[in-house]
């Protein structure tokens, strides 16, 4: 059934595949930029990915104004302010984000400071507060999971007031997302698994939450198909270029889907697990996904049933009776988790991931105040969250 009304936007140009990095100088020139800042983190530098990116500029007329590779794991206000100073000092005219969610969010924060010509990003917290034209912005993801290269959200941590500040605006969308298989080739199996399950959660929640629409459905189902076909292969063999590239595409498509249709209770509870017990986001998604689906099943069963087709193919869909399909789909996700656990020891219970029973109350209260609760089609009370946590423990 089509929604009565929906909005969909994805203006990000996607340069994907072999030698995609080498297209960046041309894209910068198209945007009248020639002196970008690169925002990344130490892990990327140490993994040699920064060097690969810098080498891709050889024989171009671009000068890298400055490289900042000290982005912390959670993008912070202090870091954003420091990078903006560097940007101005080195007379940069474009932003390149290289990394996972944190460098991407940090780069979006820097873009707000520079483009709005301000020194206080807090004035722009919330939805649709940005009015100025933004700086040219290119995103190079190094994991296949967050989808940040195509999302309009940034979350920056305000250390002083100890709050996570959300910024939502279509102006935060990068101009270009560069998906180059070289960037994810050396990801360890556990991170590959967790980020892949994050992408699967994005796609499933995008397909089932209140903001779902025919455009986001198309991206979500295409992403689920690629994940179903490639995630286990890429965990088994990280050097499988084709599977790596498929996962990069899946992650970006899932990102486009959820950027337009939002995510739901898996994310709300997962964010809370991250905030309270520092559980890795992708791992929390993988663990919680089947249990939240079980909770939602009486409302969303028909939609889960449809997703057998992209995840497992026509044969399994046809071999499963109509009344059993939603349970079968949840079972398929559980069995994926089980196989991943056998391959790379990614935790599949919250207890294994580090959550303690005495933290349940705090997780439940934090989850109820997370914005992702709102688009979840079924209302969750505190007791409902506690029950999900108990089942996933």
């Amino acid at each position, binding site marked *: 059934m089509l929604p009565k009304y929906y*909005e969909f936007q994805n203006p990000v140009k996607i340069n994907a595949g072999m030698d995609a990095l080498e297209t960046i100088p041309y894209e910068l020139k198209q945007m009248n930029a020639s002196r970008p800042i690169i925002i990344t983190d130490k892990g990327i530098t140490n993994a040699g990915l920064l060097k690969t990116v810098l080498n891709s500029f050889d024989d171009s007329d671009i000068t890298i104004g400055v490289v900042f590779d000290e982005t912390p794991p959670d993008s912070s206000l202090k870091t954003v302010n420091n990078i903006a100073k560097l940007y101005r000092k080195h007379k940069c005219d474009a932003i390149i984000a290289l990394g996972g969610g944190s460098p991407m969010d940090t780069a979006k924060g820097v873009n707000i400071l520079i483009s709005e010509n301000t020194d206080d990003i807090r004035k722009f917290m*919330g*939805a*649709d*507060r940005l009015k100025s034209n933004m700086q040219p912005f290119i995103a190079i993801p190094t994991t296949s999971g967050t989808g940040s290269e195509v999302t309009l959200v940034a979350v920056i941590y305000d250390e002083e007031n100890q709050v996570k500040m*959300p910024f939502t605006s279509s102006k935060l969308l990068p101009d270009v997302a560069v998906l180059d298989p070289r960037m994810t080739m050396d990801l360890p199996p556990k991170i590959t698994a967790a980020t892949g399950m994050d992408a699967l959660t994005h796609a499933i929640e995008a397909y089932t939450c*209140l903001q779902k629409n025919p455009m986001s459905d198309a991206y979500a189902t295409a992403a689920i198909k690629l994940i179903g076909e490639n995630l286990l292969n890429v965990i088994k063999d990280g050097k499988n270029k084709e599977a790596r590239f498929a996962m990069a595409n899946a992650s970006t498509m899932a990102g486009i889907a959820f950027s337009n249709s939002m995510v739901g209770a898996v994310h709300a509870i997962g964010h809370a697990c991250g905030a309270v017990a520092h559980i890795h986001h992708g791992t929390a998604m993988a663990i919680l996904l089947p249990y939240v689906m079980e909770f939602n099943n009486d409302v969303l069963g028909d939609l889960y049933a449809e997703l057998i087709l992209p995840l497992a193919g026509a044969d399994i869909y046809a071999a499963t009776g109509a009344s059993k399909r939603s349970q079968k789909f949840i079972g398929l996700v559980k069995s994926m988790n089980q196989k991943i656990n056998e391959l790379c020891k990614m935790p599949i219970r919250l207890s294994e991931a580090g959550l303690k029973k005495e933290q349940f109350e705090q997780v439940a209260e934090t989850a109820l105040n997370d914005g992702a609760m709102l*688009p979840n089609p079924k209302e969750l009370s505190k007791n409902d969250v506690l029950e999900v946590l108990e089942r996933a423990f």
Partner: protein
Amino acid sequence: MITNYKPGHKLIQRTVVKTGFLALGRAIESASNFEENVKKEIKDWNDGFTFTMNVLPYGPNLAMRKKNGVLKMIRLKKNETADLIVEIKNLSTAFRMITTQMGAHHVFAQNKIGVSGNIADSMRFIRIVYTVEAYMFPKILNKNILKKSPKMDMKKHFNRWHIYTKGMILGK
């Protein structure tokens, strides 16, 4: 050829929304005095915490402030800002909301609301609106605007009666 077309006014919708905001504001004021869930939601807000729900671009608006532990409707002064600003993008959407054709979650889902402020505060605000709407409207209408209608026991029936009488008239 049409030039310099000046849009007209939706006077009926504006009047309905204005009246609806007044009723909702009074009901929230009243509920903040005695309703357990509303009291729990506002517990963490400091006295002086202000939220406003505005219809873009010209209003109407509903502004409320926590004072002496309860919520009070206020009129914001020019250039005075709020801790939480909820902006409904057009009058038609506000009309649908106030006439129970759409719930707050649908309005968010359709991207017809902008929020400025802390996400946790906006979730508290929405839960307050849900709680109060459950008293304001009968179950048949609540189905359109709430994900889950609460069970109405004797205490809740009494609360509803209180909101309809003292609450909406006096805000007590």
